[in-house]
């Protein structure tokens, strides 16, 4: 996370992303988790490892719930 914090910059605001809560929804369920976001405009960044790792697991769990 520390690495992400310094390396990812919001193009619009020119500031580094910081961890902040982000809300998600899938199949009538909603939840939130801490994600790197622009502190000014809120633009989030979801890395591939997260999308294809933990998020994908949760998606499958919800599909089979």
């Amino acid at each position: 996370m520390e690495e992400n914090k310094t390396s990812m910059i919001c193009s619009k605001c020119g500031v580094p992303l910081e961890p902040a809560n982000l809300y998600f929804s899938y199949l009538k369920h909603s939840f939130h988790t801490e994600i790197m976001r622009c502190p000014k405009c809120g633009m989030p960044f979801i890395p591939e490892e997260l999308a294809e790792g933990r998020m994908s697991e949760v998606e499958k769990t919800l599909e089979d719930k």
Partner: protein
Amino acid sequence: METFDEIKDKIKNKCLEREDPQCISCCPFRLDVRDFISNMRRGGFNLAYRQYSNAVGFPAIVSEICDAPCKSKCPRAKTGGAVELDLLEKACFDYASNLNPNRYNLPQKNKKIAIIGAGMSGLSCALRLANKKYSVTVFEKSARIGGSLWNMMPSEIFLEDMRRQFMYETYELKLYSEVTDPTLLLKEYDAVYIATGKGGNSFGLLDNAQINGIPFATKHKGVFAGGELLGANVTEAMAQGLTASNTLEFYLKTGNMKSAPRTSHTKLTIDTAGIERSAAVIPENRKRYTKEEAQAEAARCILCRCDICEKYCPLMRYFGLMPKRIEGEVHITIHPGTLDGNGTVATRLISTCNQCGLCGEVCPQDIDMGMFLRLSHNAMRDKDAMPWAFHEFWLRDLAFANSDSAAFFYKPSAKSKYMFFPGCQLGASNPEYVLKSYEYLLGKMSDTSLCLMCCGAPAAWSGDYEQHQEICGEIKKKWEECGRPVMIFACQTCRKFFADYIPDIKSISLYEVMLKNGISCPSGENINEASVFDPCSSRYFPETQKAVRALLKNSGYKLKQLKYEGDKAQCCSWGGQISTANPLYTKRLIDERCSDGELPYVVYCSNCRDVFAGSGKEVKHILDIIFGLSDWNTKRPTFSARLHNREYLRTVLAEKYCGEKAAEVEKTALYMTPEVENKLDRAKILEDDVRSVIDSCEEHQRIVADSGTRHKFGYGMVGHMTLWVEYEAEKNGWRVFNAYTHRMKIEREEVWNGRKQDLDDLQ
């Protein structure tokens, strides 16, 4: 077509999956022969003995006197001799290391039962009631126990077995005690079982049913009768004694008198055609089996059950589920027991079925589980309970196929005798398939019209019944516009869907037309030996299967039969479009189908071609052979290329037949390495979608940049899917480094913009 409830009812009431085999059905003790045999064949004599003992009560006695009625019904009788179950019974007794019964420490029950007659029916009943710790008294008018067994075997065998089975139980035995009126016993006892043996006293208590041999409830409340008294033989009498214990216990608990249920004969019949002949094992000493002989004989049993659907259905084998369990799981999935819808266990199962219908074809009861799962899909979709992700890609694909960019309709004259319906995937796979086929057809029948669009199968597979109906209506309208022509199908799936949902349309396959009207089919240059892989939907059109083979044989191909073909044709994996819902199963299925035959496959469904080509199998579509198109190793087109192929096909057709000049559409260039291109294709990410996400990110400057690599990251929605793209500018386009998706939707991001301070409490 059958309704959901009709199929459901058939699964519940007609499916023979749980029907007993003949041997169990005719066994007085209903010994679970399949379980017994399974233990015996692996040498599990202790377990087999325990199971046998539980079923018969007195294993030493029954193994000696059992006349094996099962042998006359065994399907093995016709293929080497019935399984020698009587010898196997003796073997389990001979080789079990511990013959003693189990000892259970249960509290004594405060009910008293009187049994009249110490023959085998009475003692069997006494044994089971004593096992359950009821207080049992047996009245015997003579001086000895065992009844008719004294005339059948040496007394040491049965007396020893009785001693052993009662070793941990107590019961009171009253010898020289003749009962004159059982009803008087009810003053002291809670229930009475009359088992006075052949020609014994029935005390005038038997009702009509019992006089006709149906045991248990007599005319008097609390008094039951069974055994040889009612005309049973000794083994039947023992079995009745065991069952009587349950009937008496039921009476003690509820006060209700029951008779034995009428035994219904099993409906299970076994087709012995495919069973290899194997002679029954004869014991070397002519009397009893050795352990090895017993195991070898047990191995001859074919464990009769109705599982033909499972044999042919990879889905049932993958999930380890048979029709009744599937019905149960589907029911609770559609009607979950909790308010938040937990327990939808079969969602993925429903979405993994290829709906090929083979289960229904082979089922002796005509139960089509594929159709059941398709209709379950409808029900789930109606409740908005089916994950959109399973079918969204394919529904977008359908929408594109039927959009102005890809769909095309042409009629050379006001009325046509024939209409060519190539289906949407044929041209996606290779536009030349459609162009050359239509050219050929026009050469033979110049008024043939052309309807290029999707038949709606993906909508039906996804449970979207309304959309499917809408598409059927649209097609029907075009068909009527052309004077109700005979439809020529390249895709047998389209044809099957039309046969089911628009039955007015008469159909023929492209390959039959080609065979009938003649076409030169060049012989193979380096490969002329192959196997025809029939698409699953061709099962309903055997004349098409024949035509394809005839075309190939005419051109000199030597054809080798596959394990599954003709009326047993299996799905290549495409049916039902299951790959998103269950990629693991899809992969396994493709591997299975690829290994059905070693030779290269000739197919006549472009989906089969692309599925096999995608996994490295040497394959050609028959149109490749006829028109000299793709080679045996030509790769399948990517999903992006398929869309492009469709656009191209439409453009060429419109120009060629309608003189339409295509408008130049300029798309921003995307540059990517072959690895990235493959990755996108595997994830079913379309280049057009990547392009539109980048455009949107650039327009709104919704971009995150990596300060090290300078790569840009942005996301956009593709349908319900969130697509992330990693890219940078290059020449007049974009260099794409990566793209990936997630199904979860990012919420509330929009409210952050400019109004963050108002929502701090939510963040």
